């Protein structure tokens, strides 16, 4: 086998082709070759930025139904997910997808919580308005409202953290999740599923 031994390489044609000086020694596995801009070649290591990486993804898919007549916020059964961040600097990206129904024109307020703290809610307006993530109201007790949203939270902890949904119904009616308020046990009155998903995003 022949061996070509040179210290420098250059393009054969052109008015003033650049000349590159080869490194004296080999690099390590996986390294790339780079120039200093003056023709001196050396080996470098690829550095992947630490921030913005998805470190873990956890999802709860609720396939059964839930309903409430409560006029103050109570937990939406099963719409909860726990995550333990690997670093206090991590953020948690929360994805929500809910299928909600209620009696004709009755209003349902829904909110997202981190442990016992409501997050992703509106500011207080006046004195009595609920501070919610979503508000449902439809003129049809058989039509679902689909509510989806994303919220980037900064829990600043490495302890187990729970994200959950709560809801409250207007007095005199029933709020429902994954099933219509009205309808009988026949094919067209289908049920649905809802999800809450959390992603830990590295700082």
């Amino acid at each position, binding site marked *: 086998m022949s061996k070509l031994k040179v210290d420098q390489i250059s393009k054969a044609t052109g008015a003033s082709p650049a000349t590159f000086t080869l490194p004296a020694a080999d690099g390590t596995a996986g390294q790339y070759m780079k120039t200093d801009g003056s023709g001196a070649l050396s080996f470098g290591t690829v550095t992947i930025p630490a921030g913005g990486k998805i470190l873990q993804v956890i999802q709860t898919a609720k396939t059964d*139904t*839930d*309903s*409430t*007549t409560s006029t103050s916020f*109570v937990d939406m059964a099963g719409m909860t997910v726990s995550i333990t961040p690997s670093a206090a600097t991590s953020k948690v990206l929360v994805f929500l997808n809910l299928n909600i129904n209620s009696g004709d024109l009755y209003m349902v307020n829904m909110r997202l919580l981190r442990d016992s703290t409501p997050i992703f809610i509106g500011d207080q307006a006046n004195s009595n308005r609920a501070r919610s993530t979503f508000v449902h109201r439809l003129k049809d007790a058989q039509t679902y409202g689909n509510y989806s949203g994303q919220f980037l939270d900064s829990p600043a902890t490495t302890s187990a953290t729970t994200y959950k949904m709560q809801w409250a119904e207007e007095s005199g009616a*029933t709020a429902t999740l994954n099933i219509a308020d009205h309808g009988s046990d026949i094919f067209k009155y289908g049920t649905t599923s809802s999800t809450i998903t959390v992603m830990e995003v590295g700082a």
Partner: protein
Amino acid sequence: MTLVANAILAIDPTAQVSVTAEDINKITWHDGNPNRITAEQIIEKQAALAIQAEADAVAEVNRMASAKEKLEALGLTTEEVKTAFGI
């Protein structure tokens, strides 16, 4: 079938409850169930409401048929009644 929560509301319009999976054994009474509503009462009310819903549906069909008949007696054609009133 009428929702469990709706049956409870029909018994006590101020009841504060949550029901998981439409399971009569998975009722959370946020108000402590002050009227001591029983599972038997709920099941009985669900059955009564289902019968009532069926009767209401039949009555609605009959009202529509009656309205159509009266409109046609006034001289409207079947097509005109359908176009104007959707029945």
